[in-house]
């Protein structure tokens, strides 16, 4: 018998937390606020664990109907939830990592005046993200999709008194809307041609369709449109520009939303729609190319950044590119595997970076750090583990997932593999660069006035700052747990265990590639060896450039000249977008829509109509002479006309 899982509790619990903190948090103490946030988020995690515990005893995919939503002449979208292996993985990652980040935030945000607001938003985000993950139809998923966008907007602009934070929030929101436009049109096409948005129904109807190998058809169009949506949410070329700016938000937000969970929603959506993509090779190729290019492109920008969070942001974009590359070559389970390990180590990296920023009193510029490993050993240790994980050094988590992706990419097309490998090298290089610049060498913090650069809402600048100081335990414990997960998280992938777990979702395509795998096992080992070598050499290069011969980077930068400054300025993509899209839009809106249409057409027509009415009335009012007999005369004359007309009618007949 299938036990009742009550999946609906998982999203609703954080919603309750958000509501309580949002409505009553202002008057509550910090302890009460954090207790409520942690209890509700923790309860969701506990419930997710319970679901995982009973997972083997339910028939999959498990569907749970909660309430009616939309039912119009054959089209149905309900509040209903859908659980299979894929959503279970996402569920555990989101609630687990989310809970750890909640715990961390208790320490990190303690001195912020918007404490209750922060936790309310954070819980709200959890609600929407879990709705996204658990939805059983695209429309409910879209609700979650938009909801996380909203939470992201609120949290990026959390310090809204800062202009840059407010505009970064707007930028994220607007860029995401562009992606959502594609997503929505994809959904409309699905409704038009398949009459449903329920995953089960849609996929049932699509399965018999043959792959569109020759030319592009309906499924390719839908696939590409969904991909556009995923590009926005998951920060892929050309819509990645919002993610680096999103670092204006508090660091736990960057960890939770802009690294571990929300930005992976696009990958989840593509993986969820794998039935569509598998029958649309054209769309898959687009996914793979965009993913590969994004991975390389963002990684190169990551090399030159000096803001610790910006490096991590570009690294996130790059890693998301890996996931898309995996999905694009049909290795959806590898993509989800990397999504999971990435959630661990990138969440950890951001939290550790937050701990560093906390330690040095709000400074984010790595050039003003250095030598911190003696001051904050625990942060150093955990961040080191995360760096090893993301660089792909065995046996850390990132190695297993990244290697899986590279291997699948190699099977599909060696060019993907080659670019992926180059990216892996760059990744390793810039991550170790970050580590060395931050923790090795001498501390540069004394030379500058750290107070001037303190985050506005960060209270630590008051009591600082002779020495950087280690963070409190409430921040360190989540770091350590995530560090452990970053070490062992990849082990589930050994022997394709993770792939087999997800096989019921992704079906036969995976099984076929698994069959081909045994034949070339030696090749796989060789590639694995190459990628480890590449990762290690990236680390060594970083050591040479940033520790042993620290004068070299400047020289190299000078030699490269224009190219270096192009990379430093993020290839001028923001400027390009501003010139191509933003400026024409603003100018057009100002001169044509505002001054032209709004002022001249709409305002003037209304004003003229009012003036005309006034003018006419002014003339007509003289008819009101006040002379009783003239009124009576008008009435009599009118009656006479009516009577004459009636007589005429009578005579005419």
């Amino acid at each position, binding site marked *: 018998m299938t036990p009742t899982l009550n999946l609906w509790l998982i999203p609703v619990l954080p919603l309750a937390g958000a509501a309580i903190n949002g409505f009553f948090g202002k008057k509550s103490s910090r302890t009460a606020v954090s207790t409520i946030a942690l209890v509700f988020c923790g309860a969701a995690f506990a419930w997710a664990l319970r679901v995982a515990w009973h997972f083997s005893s339910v028939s999959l995919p498990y569907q749970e109907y909660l309430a009616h939503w939309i039912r119009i002449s054959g089209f149905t979208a309900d509040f209903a939830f859908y659980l299979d292996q894929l959503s279970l993985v996402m569920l555990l990652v989101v609630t687990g990592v989310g809970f750890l980040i909640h715990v961390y935030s208790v320490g990190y945000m303690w001195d912020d005046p918007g404490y209750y607001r922060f936790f309310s938003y954070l819980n709200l985000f959890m609600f929407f993200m879990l709705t996204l993950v658990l939805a059983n139809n695209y429309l409910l998923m879209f609700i979650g999709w938009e909801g996380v966008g909203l939470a992201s907007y609120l949290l990026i602009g959390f310090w809204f008194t800062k202009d840059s934070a407010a505009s970064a929030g707007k930028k994220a929101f607007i860029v995401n809307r562009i992606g959502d436009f594609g997503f929505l049109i994809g959904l409309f096409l699905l409704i038009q041609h398949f009459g449903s948005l329920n995953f089960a129904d849609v996929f049932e109807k699509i399965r018999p369709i043959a792959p569109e190998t020759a030319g592009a058809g309906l499924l390719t169009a839908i696939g590409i449109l969904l991909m556009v949506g995923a590009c926005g949410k998951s920060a892929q070329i050309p819509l990645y520009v919002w993610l680096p700016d999103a670092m204006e938000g508090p660091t736990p937000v960057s960890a939770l939303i802009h690294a571990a969970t929300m930005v992976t929603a696009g990958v989840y959506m593509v993986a969820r729609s794998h039935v569509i993509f598998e029958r649309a090779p054209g769309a898959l190729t687009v996914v793979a190319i965009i993913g590969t290019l994004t991975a390389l492109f963002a990684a190169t920008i990551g090399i030159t950044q000096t803001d610790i969070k910006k490096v991590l942001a570009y690294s996130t974009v790059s890693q998301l590119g890996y996931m898309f590359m995996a999905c694009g070559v049909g290795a959806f389970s590898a993509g989800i595997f990397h999504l999971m390990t990435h959630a661990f180590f990138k969440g950890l990296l951001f939290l550790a970076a937050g701990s560093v920023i906390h330690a040095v009193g709000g400074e984010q510029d790595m050039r003003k750090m250095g030598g911190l490993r003696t001051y904050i050993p625990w942060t150093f240790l955990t961040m080191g583990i995360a760096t090893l994980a993301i660089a792909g050094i065995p046996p850390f988590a990132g190695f297993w997932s990244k290697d899986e992706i590279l291997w699948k990419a190699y099977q599909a097309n060696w060019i993907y593999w080659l670019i992926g490998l180059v990216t892996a090298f760059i990744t390793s290089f810039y991550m170790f660069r970050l580590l060395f610049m931050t923790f090795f060498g001498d501390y540069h913090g004394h030379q500058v006035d750290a107070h001037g650069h303190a985050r506005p809402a960060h209270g630590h600048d008051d009591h600082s700052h002779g020495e950087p100081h280690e963070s409190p335990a409430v921040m360190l414990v989540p770091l350590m747990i995530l560090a452990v997960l970053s070490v062992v998280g990849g082990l589930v992938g050994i022997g394709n265990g993770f792939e087999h777990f997800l096989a019921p979702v992704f079906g036969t395509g995976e099984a076929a590639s698994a069959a081909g795998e045994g034949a070339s096992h030696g090749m796989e080992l060789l590639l694995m060896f190459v990628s480890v070598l590449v990762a290690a050499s990236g680390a060594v290069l970083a050591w040479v450039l940033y520790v042993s011969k620290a004068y070299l980077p400047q020289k190299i930068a000078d030699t490269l000249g224009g190219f270096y400054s192009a990379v430093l300025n993020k290839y001028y993509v923001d400027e390009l977008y501003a010139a191509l899209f933003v400026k024409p839009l603003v100018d057009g809106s100002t001169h044509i829509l505002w001054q032209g249409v709004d002022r001249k057409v709409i305002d003037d027509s209304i004003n003229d109509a009012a003036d005309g009415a006034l003018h006419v009335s002014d003339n007509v*009012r003289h008819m*009101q*002479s*006040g*002379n*009783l*007999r003239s009124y*009576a*005369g008008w009435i*009599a004359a009118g009656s006479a006309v009516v009577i004459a007309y009636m007589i005429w009618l009578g005579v005419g007949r």
Partner: protein
Amino acid sequence: MVPLSYYLVLSGILFACGVVGFLIKRNIITIFMSIELMLNGVNLSFVAFAAHWHALAGQVFVFFVMVVAAAEATVGLAIIIAVYRTRETLNVDQVNLLKL
């Protein structure tokens, strides 16, 4: 038997007298009497039709019109007295406060 048309012509003449009186007279009382004349002109046509068609409804109507006219006369005279008390005139051309 007097033909119906005679009654109707008389009724029309009475009504026209009322209208003309209403339009050319300035004294409120006279105007008031003109109104009564119009009402009774109409009454006459009602009873004429009622007799001609042997239908009772017209006669019933006349009773209603007379009752309403009586009520109107009461109210109207009261207004006229009030106007005279405040303005000391019965000339309608001087009762023009509503004029803009």
